[in-house]
């Protein structure tokens, strides 16, 4: 689904409005994920969850919490440590009429399940000429910032976004994660739902109802005059924080959040860049062949290129495995100060 910039903006502001009206109920990102799962499971008996330690343990990051006690061991199904097996089981269950939600403890472990994700789930609908569907959601925490080092901290979203047939969602805030997850569960396709682990404890006003946020809609978080910042995952809140600092210096920036990498709603980004004339693209993942390279390409392939006042800039994670030492880990991915500095430099370039 593609929407215009205006629609996206109005959706974001609608969301803002409902937050204000229900502002008395502030819950965390993990609670919002759990609430979406519980509501989907209550509404549709085909929905069930499987994953490692999601039962009495409550999930490695506590996301499934009390769902085991509310829905029982059949539908909140603890599995052996067997990522390929459980993702494959989800594919088969989806083919046979269920709506599985798989939790993979760390998105890094999707590497163990890659055949089922890439060769099976993503391709079955197409390979069979549209005769079968694989409606499943694979939820996985991604990102650095927890001191868990190189095998528990990656941001692999570009891999998945590169595979036709997979939808890829990166919810950036508590306010939206529920609505996006409900849409992912509704979707007749396999959806990679990538939750940044630093966001789990963040909170915000979350609608009590079952409001969906359509996949494939870019959110405009902030509209400014000088620079279009595009960011994903935890980088969205870092950009918003940087925007406050920059505003104090007279640099007025937009912050756009694609929310879903596939399908991508690029038009709001192109429209905003056409207006500001400057683009700063921020991601946690390593820059080389990353998602923001795709955004940069979309800009230069569109008439937005004629409005550029300065070269497009990317601020990305370094091309390095995520290190353990806190000062090294911090240095490996963009931080608020770095975003502010990059924005200042970009203003000087034009």
């Amino acid at each position, binding site marked *: 689904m593609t929407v215009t910039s205006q629609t996206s903006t109005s959706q974001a502001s609608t969301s803002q409005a409902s937050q204000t009206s229900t502002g008395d109920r502030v819950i965390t990102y993990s609670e919002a994920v759990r609430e979406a799962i519980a509501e989907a499971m209550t509404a549709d008996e085909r929905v*069930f969850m499987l994953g490692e330690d999601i039962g009495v343990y409550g999930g490695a990051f506590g996301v499934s919490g009390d769902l085991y006690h509310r829905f029982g061991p*059949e*539908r909140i199904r603890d*599995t*052996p440590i*067997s990522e*390929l*097996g*459980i*993702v*494959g*089981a*989800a*594919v*088969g*269950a*989806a*083919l*046979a*009429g*269920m709506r*599985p939600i798989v939790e993979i403890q760390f998105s890094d472990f999707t590497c163990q399940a890659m*055949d*089922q994700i890439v*060769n*099976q789930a993503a391709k*079955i*609908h*197409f*390979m*069979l*000429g*549209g*005769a*079968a*569907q*694989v*409606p499943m959601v694979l939820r996985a925490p991604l990102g650095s910032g927890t001191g868990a080092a190189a095998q528990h901290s990656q941001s692999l979203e570009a891999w998945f976004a590169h595979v*036709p*047939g997979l*939808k890829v969602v990166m919810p950036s805030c508590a306010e939206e994660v529920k609505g996006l997850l409900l849409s992912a569960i509704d979707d*007749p*396709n396999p959806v990679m739902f990538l939750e940044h682990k630093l966001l789990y404890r963040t909170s915000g006003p979350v609608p009590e109802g079952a409001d969906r946020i359509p996949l494939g809609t870019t959110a405009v978080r902030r509209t400014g005059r000088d620079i279009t910042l595009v960011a994903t995952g935890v980088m969205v809140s870092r950009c918003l924080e940087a925007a406050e600092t920059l505003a104090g210096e007279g640099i007025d920036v937009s912050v756009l959040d694609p929310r879903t990498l596939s*399908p991508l709603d690029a038009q709001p980004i192109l429209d905003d860049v056409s207006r500001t004339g400057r683009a700063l693209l921020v991601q946690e993942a390593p820059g080389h062949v990353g998602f923001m390279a795709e955004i940069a390409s979309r800009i230069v392939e569109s008439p937005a290129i004629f409005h550029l006042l300065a070269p497009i800039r990317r601020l990305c994670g370094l091309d390095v495995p995520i290190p353990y030492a806190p000062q090294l880990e911090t240095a490996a991915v963009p931080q608020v100060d770095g975003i502010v500095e990059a924005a200042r430099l970009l203003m000087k370039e034009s």
Partner: protein
Amino acid sequence: MARLGEDPGTARRTLEAMWRIRRFEEAVDDLFARGLMHGTMHLSIGQEASATGTCFALRDDDAITSTHRGHGHCIAKGADLEQMMAELLAKETGYCRGRGGSMHIADVATGNLGANGIVGGGIPIAAGAGLAYQLQGIDRVVVSFFGDGATNEGAFHEAVNLASIWKLPVIFLCENNKYGMSFSTEKSINVETIAERSAAYGIPGVTVDGNDVEAVHEAVTTAVERARTGQGPTLVESLTYRWKGHSKSDKNLYRTKEEIAEWRDKDPIGRFETLVVERGVLSAEDVEQVRAAATNDVRDAARRANAAPDADPDDLLDAVFATA
């Protein structure tokens, strides 16, 4: 338990299925050799009893997952020859509208959840389908076909483990044709039989003569009964042999002419024909009639499929994502 060669009706249908598989694969082999079919394919000629004996132990609403060598499974499960042929001929009317080809034929309506180009790829999917039926409270079962090579993939072990701990209604049907492409089971596994691997998962494992359609049917029927009554999965190892090479590039450098000739003498179709004629269940004329009918059916299917429209590049993108 009724045997497949006991009454004339069942014997005829069994023989029909095996001949349809044989004639279909001979036809596509020929079309390929004449340059009228592109891509690649993996023929199961010589393995017809394994596919047929297994699928004949299933109800219509039971499911299968298949392999890269899957034409026999599809046909034995009831697939339409014309739609299969159309798929291989890259036609819009094929099972996958020309998107999948030989390795991805599926017919979800008849419980065929799909062939698979990845060795072992279908095994966890079969476990998942079994899980779905268990959760839905229906007594369907799933057969997962795979070869000897797949039992060295992690996917096999993960899926069998899941099915065993959850007592899923799945039959793991290993067609041991002695070679994973060129690598023989003598080199690739360190146990006497693949069925022994079931012991690691606390489930029954049986080895049967895969060229004896009645023996396959009997073993699978027992496994199906077990699965359908909530007692969990079984590993059935069906010993058989592919007469043709692994795929189109195979020069048979890893096996001898004598070995191939020896297995041709164990032809599962001829063996069943002899059996039912000797039993007096079918006459020699009946057998000849079944064979001729299969030849005609395949020829008709190929002719009709060939006349169908080609898959259209204008529609190429329309099935990447499902729309509600």
